[in-house]
């Protein structure tokens, strides 16, 4: 079996780690500088969104609605009605779940140009327990018509997605982690909506990951290579629209697909890929995510390991799919 490594991409083993919220907040500042329509809305989440510098520089373009997420979404829609481009930022668990009807009606259905920034998503707040985990958000948001859903993997992609978001007219959900991750993209990076970049070429199996799982997928591909398995790695940051052609291409050119996400098995990336394969090109799959349980307590890193959401888990799933023991 052959394995080819993309020259562009680092694996995570070299790993200085970065909090993507820094790239998020720095890029939002830059966008505000270049476009006076850009404003921010938070739900008392000034620190957790890392928007203190924004508040300091643009106090009149910063709205803190307090702990009031339903109102926060409506206020965002109203600001968009008034010609502004609001970035509505809060912990993803509250931003999505608490205000789901507003996200559906005020954003998806109404098509207001509002950017939802779901911070500290997945199990980033691991120790705080399932109330603060946001592993359902991908399933919830991706079923809403007109809502674009993006899960960036590292600081360069987070910055690129933020830059892209200002040019994109329409509601978006950007899922941004606080769990430190290694760089997997070169800087500066350009994000393309609906495209799944190939981070590593391979012929035997395809690993599709998003968010914090991308670096782990690259690690798994490296370890698979040393086991003689050639794994292709795709970054599925564009959850909606999803890159159907890349999925079908992977199904045709490799022997199966392993998906990996910091989210519920149900309704997330694995579900989205399975829907396309089932209709157009059935292929063996393994889905790595959180099963139908509320997670126990522990750090984000602990919980990812607990659920097998690491390079070893991906490695094992790929071998299982290929029938290699």
């Amino acid at each position, binding site marked *: 079996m052959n394995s080819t490594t993309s020259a562009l991409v680092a694996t995570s083993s070299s790993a200085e780690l970065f909090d993507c919220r820094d790239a998020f907040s720095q890029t939002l500042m830059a966008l505000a500088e270049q476009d006076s329509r850009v404003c921010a809305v938070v739900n008392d989440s000034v620190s957790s969104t890392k928007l203190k510098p924004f508040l300091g520089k643009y106090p009149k373009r910063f709205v803190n609605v307090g702990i009031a997420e339903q109102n926060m979404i409506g*206020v965002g829609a109203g600001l968009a009605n008034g010609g502004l481009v609001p970035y509505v930022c809060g912990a993803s668990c509250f931003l999505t779940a608490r205000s789901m*009807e507003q996200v559906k009606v005020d954003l998806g259905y109404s098509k207001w140009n509002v950017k939802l920034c779901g911070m500290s998503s997945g199990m980033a707040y691991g120790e705080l327990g399932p109330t603060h985990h946001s592993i359902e958000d991908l399933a919830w948001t991706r079923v809403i018509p007109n809502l674009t859903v993006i899960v960036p993997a590292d600081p360069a992609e987070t910055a690129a997605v933020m830059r892209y978001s200002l040019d994109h007219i329409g509601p978006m959900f950007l899922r941004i982690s606080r769990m430190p991750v290694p760089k997997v993209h070169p800087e500066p990076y350009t994000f393309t909506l609906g495209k799944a970049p190939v981070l590593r070429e391979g012929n035997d199996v395809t690993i599709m990951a998003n968010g914090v799982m991308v670096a782990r997928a690259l690690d798994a591909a490296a370890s698979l290579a040393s086991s003689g398995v050639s794994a292709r790695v795709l970054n599925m940051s564009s959850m909606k629209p999803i890159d159907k052609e890349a999925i079908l291409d992977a199904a045709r050119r490799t022997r199966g697909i392993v998906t990996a996400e910091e989210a519920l098995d149900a309704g997330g990336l694995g579900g989205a890929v399975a829907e396309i394969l089932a209709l157009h090109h059935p292929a063996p799959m393994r889905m790595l995510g959180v099963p139908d349980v509320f997670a126990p307590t522990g750090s984000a890193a602990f919980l990812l390991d607990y659920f097998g959401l690491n390079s070893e888990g991906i490695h094992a799933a790929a071998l299982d799919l290929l029938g290699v023991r």
Partner: protein
Amino acid sequence: MHDLGALTLGADTPAQPEVLLRKANQIRLSAMTMTQHSSLGHTGGDLSSADILTTLFLGKVLNLDTDNPAWPQRDRFIMSKGHCSGAFYSILAARGFFPRAQLSTFMDPLSQLNGHPDRNKLPGVEANTGPLGHGFPIAVGCALAARMRGETWRTFVLTGDGELQEGSNWEAAMTAQHYGLDNLVLIVDRNRIQQGDFTETTIRMEPLGAKFAAFGFAVEEIDGHNHAALLNRFTHLPLESGKPTCFIANTIKGKGVSFAENKPAWHHGVPTMEQLILAASELGLENLDDIEVSI
């Protein structure tokens, strides 16, 4: 401009309360005719809100451009009680946002006139409403946008009273007072009846005005059927500098039609053709032709 009926409200004609009353009654009959057509609708709230809507849209309160509905400097009007779409669509047509003939497609298959308004389908609709408690937060955002951009346009939002049981309204109220949004006008259609029963029997709302005052609004109770009073108050805004305005507009659900007045069952009652003819008579309109809505 498409006016309802024979009475014309020209651009240079001052809004006369007696003219507004006749216009409002035409809106009432138009809404009831639409509900009779589709066998669906919200007669009680259509009738209670008709005078408020007529004063805002035909009394030259709202600064709008029907030729350019997205005119950035327009006043914003958010119909939070989106279920009263019969009255809302009728007033939008009366103001000239779309031809009155379109009203006869109310809730038909593929009609642009959904049971609840969709801004992407109809000009003049600022927000997609229907689920309650959405309009007020959106209005707060509109008012914040004007403030942020240094613009002078105002934002008006009409809510039901039962609607205020949704907590999102009180979240919005806190934001409005904190930012001192005196470019925001909340009008509560206080008809005292919600879908199932009277509001005070369902869940007590009084003292409603005092609640908004405690939330930092300048509050005034007004007769929601008195066009002269409505016109006077709507043209002397804000009530208090630095505070959002709240009008508790006391109304009668089903106003103007004896068999529907103050009856919870008429929240979404559908009139028969005989009832429609009786309503026309009680509203002082000789017959259905008076509204030029052909069903």
